[in-house]
């Protein structure tokens, strides 16, 4: 529970952060809210020799509507998403998922960029981004590139973000008035999800379904979507929730229990979001 020795540098700007990453190579790690990285360091599962702090860069803490989308700065706190009137109106699913993360202290420090790049399939916001077909904007030495959420999440704790890159923005569609639901099943009130389900009615009236903690990556439950598209009723469609997924087994439940929960929660969320009606 005591990290190995490391140096700390507060980046003065995004450019400075990129420069520091270039300078220190794989010895360096970006520090945002620190709520995933610091625990890993305390368990000595990570031992970067330099932390480059980007948590106080104003250019990463931006929120801009643009062209039917919202552009979220990676440095926004999860609490910002939870409380922002714009997010609550335009992408209420995201605000609801944000509100379910940990406790208030965690949400006040943890950033949306941190939760995305950490790549934990048990995290809530990544599954929502997969559901929303979000776009992730990365900046590296060679400039900017954009990836879809589906491309971005590679494996357990592994994303497409390079060691020399900074996630700068997350672009999500604005969907005011569209129906949605977020169901998070947990053992304790402020716990991680045993299983979570995000459902969003899309601009063309279909329903996208994403699952938390059902696979090594945030999971898109396409078989449910396909079933709905081909006219299945909610209970039948929800029965496909775990299809193709690979839920983990641990103290909170074995994979069969998680598969069952995914179906139960998907049925509930689809009903709330007006699917099949």
């Amino acid at each position, binding site marked *: *529970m*005591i990290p190995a*020795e490391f140096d700390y540098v507060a980046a003065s700007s995004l450019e400075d952060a990129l420069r520091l990453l270039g300078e220190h190579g794989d010895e360096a790690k970006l520090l945002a809210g620190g709520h995933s990285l610091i625990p890993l360091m305390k*368990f000595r599962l990570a031992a970067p020799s330099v932390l480059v702090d980007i948590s106080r860069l104003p250019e990463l803490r931006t929120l801009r509507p643009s062209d039917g989308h919202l552009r979220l700065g990676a440095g926004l706190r999860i609490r910002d998403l939870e409380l922002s009137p714009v997010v609550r109106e335009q992408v209420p699913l995201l605000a609801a998922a944000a509100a379910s993360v940990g406790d208030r202290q965690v949400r006040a420090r943890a950033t949306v960029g941190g939760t995305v790049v950490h790549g934990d399939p048990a995290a809530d916001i990544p599954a929502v981004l997969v559901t929303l077909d979000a776009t992730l904007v990365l900046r590296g030495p060679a400039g900017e590139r954009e990836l879809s959420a589906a491309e971005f999440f590679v494996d357990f704790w592994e994303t497409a973000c390079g060691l020399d890159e900074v996630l700068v923005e997350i672009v999500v569609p604005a969907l005011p008035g569209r129906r949605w639901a977020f169901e998070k099943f947990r*053992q304790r009130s402020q716990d*991680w999800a045993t299983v979570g389900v995000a459902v969003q009615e899309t601009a063309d009236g279909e329903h996208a379904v994403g699952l938390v903690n059902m696979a090594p990556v945030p999971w898109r439950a396409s078989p449910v979507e396909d079933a709905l598209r081909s006219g299945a009723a909610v209970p039948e469609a929800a029965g496909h929730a775990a299809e193709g997924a690979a839920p983990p*087994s*641990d103290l909170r439940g*074995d994979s069969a*229990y998680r598969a069952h929960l995914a179906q139960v929660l998907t049925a509930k969320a689809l009903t709330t979001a007006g699917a099949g009606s």
Partner: protein
Amino acid sequence: MASMVGATVVRKEDPALLTGRGRYVDDIQLPGAVSMAFVRSHQAHARVTAIDTEAARQLPGVLGVWTAADLEGLPATRSIPGMERPCLASDTVRFVGEPVAVVAAQDRYLAADAAAAVVVDYEPLPVLATIEQAMAEGAAPIVPGQASNVVMDQPLTEGDAEAELAAAPHRTSLRIRNQRLAAVPIEPGGCVASWDSTGLTLYATVQAPHPVRNELAVMFGLPQHEVRVVAPDVGGGFGAKASFYPEFILTAELSRRLGRPVKFVETRSENLVSMTHGRAQLQDIDVGFDDEGRLLAMRVAIVQDCGAWPDATGAGLPTLTIFMSGGCYKVGTIAASFRSVTTNTTPVAAYRGAGRPEAAYLIERVVDVVADELGRDPVDVRRVNLIQPGEMPFATQWPGIVYDESDYPRLLDTLLEHLDYEALKREAEERRRDPQRPLLGIGFSTFVEMGGFGPSPLFEQFGYIGGWESSTVRMNPDGSVVVSVGTSPHGQGHETAFAQIASDALGGIPMERITVRHGDTQTIQEGIGTMGSRAIPVCGPAVQRSSDKVRQKLLQIAAHLLEASEDDIEQDGERFAVRGTPGAEVTVAEVALTAYKPHKLPEGMEIGLQVMDYYEPTNLSYPSGAHACVVEVDRATGQVSVLRYVAVDDCGTVINPLTARGQVEGGLAQGIAQALLEEVVYDGEGQPVTSSLIDYQVPGAPDVPGMETHHVEVRTSFNPLGAKGLGESGATAAPQAVVNAVVDALSHLGVRDLDMPLTPFRVWTAMRAAEEGRAAAASDGTGPPPEAMRPDPAAPPPPDGMPTPPADGDDTWKVTP
């Protein structure tokens, strides 16, 4: 003058603690102090073939690295003779977390780095992670010099009650697993040791500084006056800080060698593998009963998991379980025995209730199972068995175990007054028929436990020098008062409660004029410590007696000053007056000052106002209560929600309703958490799966339901205060109230028993198994579903409701069969 005993008083200790001005071990900064860190085994059972400390020694700021070989002759910690645990493992490690080496460095971070740089080579030995493995044919003994892993094997009765069981109209059996828990005090373990010309001083987060002093004196060959142990503010202990830990000896020894103070504070992850665990009992019960559910005979066989090193108190805890296994009932006869077994896990010792919660759970589950077998109401079955008030004090079949005054039927009646039981039963029935609604269940727990630990002959058996407590009351020359007590609080609110007792006994001295001191062997007279709900019942009377003697002297001096007869002196708070003589008055401060002016005192009276006194209780006290829990169970997910928890407690005299409520609620929070969330889990390799608070599920504030707490006060005659103790009642009462409620909610499915903790996963698995059982029974016509779910008493199968191990060999949540 209104009595302070019984008054709701805000805790004197809170302003400092709530504003961050508490002073815990880690806040103690001694000049020149260095930090100690452990190299801990990450193997559950292995031979240590080599330890390379060279790299660690070379690191900056490192003062030294020591292995067992470097500390030859260092004493071991106290335990059952022949089973003493060495401070550092030498040739063999026996559980994950056992220290293999220690490092001292300039600060905590350097010490941690150095500890990480020590390389230990292990040669794995067969791991005995469970009591079944440890007791298996041919299992090698874990503790050297033992014939097997069964380190204690004791029948407590001569017969096995087979004749009585066979003669009973009905009999059934039950296997109960009381799971292993971690205490998780908010302040983990730690200590600071320092030597100077006066000897050794140890600041440690402990519940009993005097016994720690006594042990250290023996271990270091010092007279007791050259050892000072200080328990500063202590952030919770729950029994786990009553054990003696290797770090006490090691910090002292390193401090002696280095000539500098040495501090050790464990991290949370260390705490979860190093601090003693609790419970961890497997119980086999046979019970014989009549048509009304009268308990005619019971046979109890307990296996206590001791962990790798039997703890001095831990190994014998089943005796307390057996003594209390009849609960508040007249059980015809009980035959009982226990075995304590070593396993490759963290040692097990006292945890809030220490042996009695295991008994209360046992008997309260038995009563519910009996009710279920007979199709009777569990409340009725309780009623026919309860000991009646006219039978108190009630001598149980166990020599010396005599329940003091209480009124168990009244506790149950009072509980039912707060619960519309008939309406709840109707609602449960309606919900059963409506698949859209969650199931409802009601569970009861009528319990009795032990408090006021003493008297000396009993407490000696736990390794203490006695079972008494002590108090010194000194009135200063200005009339203010210092009370020094031998108990050592760690969250209970003693500074408030003892001041209340002293205030009354001193004739109404205001609370703000009284300070309570504790926890320092240099400034406190002899003491034993705080455990076993003993502070109020045992130390309270000592405070009362010493205060009373000070007051007698005050009255004598006042009478002398006022030239009146002592019988005519009246006290009104801080004034003495002569009855019937207006204007003849003197203040307490004037009287107190006079006590320090020998020339103004009555002829022959001694100087000063200070009295030390001891109190030895005549017996244990027996706090009791009747609790009920109403739960809702989600049909689809298995999630249990506690809708209501109602507690009626009899702790005898209530000193302070506010702190009493705090004690009950805190205990209930832990008890409900045992029922629903908490369990220390090891995998098949003896690796702890719950070694951080991500997986060891302590409840957060929102997870603790609202609780309704009530008291019925029946004073005990076993001590002059009439108080029985309350610290452990909640944790003793709650688990079975919750589990009985959940089993009740699922009973129509044929679920008869469930093992804690009742996580959603476990409850869902039990519901699914029950439904599959019903479906199978319905299709092959094997009879009514509930029977089909019942185990065959002849061959105890795994209890119902246990999840079946997943096929992929993942045994992280493995349960003892």
